[in-house]
């Protein structure tokens, strides 16, 4: 990389990091979480980028080169369905297989009576979460994995062998993707490491949302103890993928742990009580967490304000970004706030107006990163994403 390119990369990294630490960089960083939009822009179908991650990577690099953003996610269509199909995971609708080829992949939640964990299995999960996942959960979620005690099969063995090797290949390929983003387009890889809240994991992948709600009423103590049992493992997973340079954040993808999906009481006593210590420990070890608050978490802003200053970046999806700024803006960087419907159905002028409205209130003293509200999929118009980018380049200079 030439000196000029290296300098450009360092300038972008510095801009991004200063903003994430709630500081005022030279201008507002642009860090759009572009997912299936990359396929639309680069000329691929959703099936191509979801099932062939080399195409997903290429599409991200093309967008990074053409839009000149500060930071992007190396592959925001993170669920590589080539891997999930190899393992045999049942809970994805794969583009080009069970849904149309140019539709984003879908998560299929099983019916309540088909939940991947039964209501009487909490003690088993609590006593050994890893053993439970291998021995009970995986045979239920993977078509070829046999139940414990049943004869093994050729396809059972292949699920583990192919799945393990494919996952390793996939994870290892991110190093090369990040290097190419840095060297070819001088773009920062925006995040590293994944976190989910214990209660979200229980709802998403084990009990299902309806089952979890019933458990919160019928056996709340078991739910709390299960969340506590998951905590050290979710912390370990998050830290294992973190940025060794401690520049970019671990991301928590927040799903259904907020009002009205659950009650205030369950949020405080279970969701937040078992997530907050994880975030505090991550911060103690020197990493920030990006709260990707999918949906509307406005009821809980005062709880998030309990966290140490600068420990998180708070991303606003359908919440009120102005209220969020009032409650959290003194302590944390904020990102997002440009509604996805505007990128899909609005005009470039409407996008520019919304960007201005957000910047004028939220970004005055720094501590703001430009992004859409949610991941940008293939419904977004190219001209609107371009309008967002160009407007911030002009208007976002401090």
């Amino acid at each position, binding site marked *: 990389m030439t000196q000029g390119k290296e300098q450009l990369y360092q300038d972008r990294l510095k801009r991004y990091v200063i903003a994430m630490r709630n500081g005022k960089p030279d201008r507002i960083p642009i860090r759009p979480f572009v997912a299936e939009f990359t396929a639309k822009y680069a000329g691929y179908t959703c099936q191509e980028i979801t099932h062939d991650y080399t195409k997903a990577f290429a599409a991200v690099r093309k967008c990074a080169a053409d839009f000149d953003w500060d930071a992007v996610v190396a592959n925001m269509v*993170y*669920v*590589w369905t080539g*891997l*999930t199909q190899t*393992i045999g*995971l049942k809970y994805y609708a794969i583009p080009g297989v069970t849904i149309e080829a140019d539709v984003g992949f879908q998560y299929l939640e099983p019916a309540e009576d088909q939940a991947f964990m039964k209501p009487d299995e909490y003690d088993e999960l609590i*006593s*050994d979460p*890893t*053993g439970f*996942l*291998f021995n009970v*959960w*995986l045979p239920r*979620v993977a078509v070829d994995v046999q139940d414990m005690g049943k004869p093994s099969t050729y396809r059972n063995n292949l699920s583990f062998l192919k*799945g*393990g090797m494919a*996952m*390793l290949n996939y994870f290892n390929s991110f190093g090369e993707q990040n290097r190419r983003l840095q060297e070819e387009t001088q773009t920062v890889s925006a995040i590293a490491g*994944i*976190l*989910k809240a214990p209660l979200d*994991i229980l709802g998403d*992948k084990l009990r299902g949302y309806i089952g979890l709600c019933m458990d919160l009423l019928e056996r709340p103590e078991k739910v709390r103890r299960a969340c506590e049992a998951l905590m*050290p*493992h*979710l*912390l*370990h*997973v998050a830290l*294992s993928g973190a940025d060794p340079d401690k520049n970019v954040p671990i991301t928590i993808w927040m799903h259904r742990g907020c009002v009205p999906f659950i009650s205030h009481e369950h949020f405080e006593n279970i969701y937040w009580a078992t997530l907050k210590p994880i975030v505090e420990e991550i911060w103690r070890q020197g990493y920030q967490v990006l709260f990707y608050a999918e949906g509307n978490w406005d009821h809980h802003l005062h709880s998030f304000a309990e966290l140490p200053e600068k420990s998180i970046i708070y991303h606003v999806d359908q919440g009120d970004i102005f209220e969020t700024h009032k409650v959290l803006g003194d302590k944390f960087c904020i990102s997002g706030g440009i509604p996805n419907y505007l990128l899909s159905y609005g005009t470039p002028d409407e996008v520019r107006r919304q960007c201005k409205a957000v910047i004028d209130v939220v970004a005055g003293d720094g501590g703001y990163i430009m992004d859409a509200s949610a991941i940008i999929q293939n419904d977004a118009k190219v001209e609107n994403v371009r309008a967002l980018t160009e407007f911030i380049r002009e208007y976002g200079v401090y």
Partner: protein
Amino acid sequence: MEQKPKPKPGVCVGWEEKLKELPEIKGDEKLLQKIWQDNESLAYMYIWHCLVSF
């Protein structure tokens, strides 16, 4: 029934459990332990990423 210790994060089958299955170690036990644990962490990450990431 013998109660197995609860595996820690990063571990599926602990080194202590594996060590009991081996004859007396003639060489470098630390080396064996390190490589065992390195490979353990791969199996651990496999199942936890199936849960958390995929």
